[in-house]
């Protein structure tokens, strides 16, 4: 068998491992998003405790920052979906 056929066979055999990698990647993305948004929440809640009048402003900024971080996490999710389905 030529080298190319062997490589093709090896690539085809590794598809289940690629899917496992995709699953791991999605899980890691979830961990990252969880930690990031948790930090935002902590900062926001602490600031509101220090200055309750600024609660509204802090809340809007917290939501915006959380949405941005979720966007980055979704990048990773989309990559994992591409691995699984394409």
């Amino acid at each position, binding site marked *: 068998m030529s080298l190319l056929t062997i490589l093709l066979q090896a690539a085809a055999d590794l598809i289940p491992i690629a899917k496992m990698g995709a699953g791991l990647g999605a899980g890691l993305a979830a961990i990252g998003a969880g930690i990031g948004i948790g930090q935002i929440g902590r900062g926001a809640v602490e600031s509101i405790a220090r200055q309750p009048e600024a609660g509204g402003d802090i809340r809007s900024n917290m939501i*915006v920052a959380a*949405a941005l971080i979720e966007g980055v996490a*979704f990048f990773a999710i989309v990559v994992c979906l*591409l691995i699984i*389905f394409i």
Partner: protein
Amino acid sequence: MMLSRMLLQKKRLFIALPLILLSVLFLSPSSVLAAGEKEEHSGEASHSPGQEEEKFNAGIMIIDHIVDAHEWHILSTRTRHVSIPLPVILVEQGKVHTFMSSRFHHGHASYKGFKLETEGKNEGKIVRVIGDSMETDQNAPLPLDLSITKNVLALFISCILICIIFISVARSYRKREGHAPKGLQSILEPVILFVRDMARSSIGDHKYERFMPYLLTLFFFIFFNNLIGLVPFFPGGANLTGNIAVTMVMALITFIITTFVGNRNYWKHIYNTPGVPWWLKFPLPLMPLVELMGVFTKPFILMIRLFANITAGHIIMLGFISLIFIFGNINIVLGYSVSVVSILFAVFMGLLELLVAFIQAYVFTLLSSLYFGMAMEEHH
């Protein structure tokens, strides 16, 4: 006073109409875009679903509800499928073919030399066949697919709804000049002022007005389509904002506006960032390269953020409902008992999705206005 002027600006319709038309243009070849879109009809293999589907396949069911299709499936009973066939419009070699998608018989028949592909790399798309058979013509290129698919029909429905609501509100502002707002005005006015304040703080007091039509259209388009996508029955439930072609068009328009509005200061910050040492710009222009990547990443992630949020929400809710049937396949009693928990979780996720619908519309509009503001910033 200013609010009525804002709403009566015909500019709004002039911005909304190109947005709609561009979306249609981009949506129709949406089956050509590769980002995870597959039109699968294998779940509805025959006209009587009873015998074919013994095992419930959650993956296929979820994918079927997320992607675009050439018919709008309403429900399936034990003996028949109820769906609305939608027009298929194909352009091939200069000739336009128009017919209803029911001619395809869910992928079992070919019509006028075309059929719905069910396997291989073109799965779900309309391909040319050899003669009158069902065999795909491998050498022929794909026809240009401008069909009115489920997402295009949902786009039309939501645009008609938005036009009805806002034109009537604009008319009532004109009629009730000087009076307090009444009816639909009173629920929309705080939201419109919310978008206006967001634009004013991002873009600046003197320049924000020209962007208001676009930002308002963007916000309400995304918000209404997110909400309509959550309704489980016709005419809702079409997952329009979860279609990457739609979000791509919106991000593209934001990008085009940012590019055209950018002043000298903006381009200077990209190609010749002040405060950066010279050896990062010449001979190897590292800093300009990084900044250029930033110029393209920002609209790209706008597109991905909205698409992934909405699609993920739909998948989660469909997943919870599928859980009932997966357990039901093991043991019917298990299915019934899981259904209580599953429905509770699905309702909770639905409430979260309502929040996400608003937040995603807000974030898209906020970031668009921030990009406009940054593009027009004067030197400090």
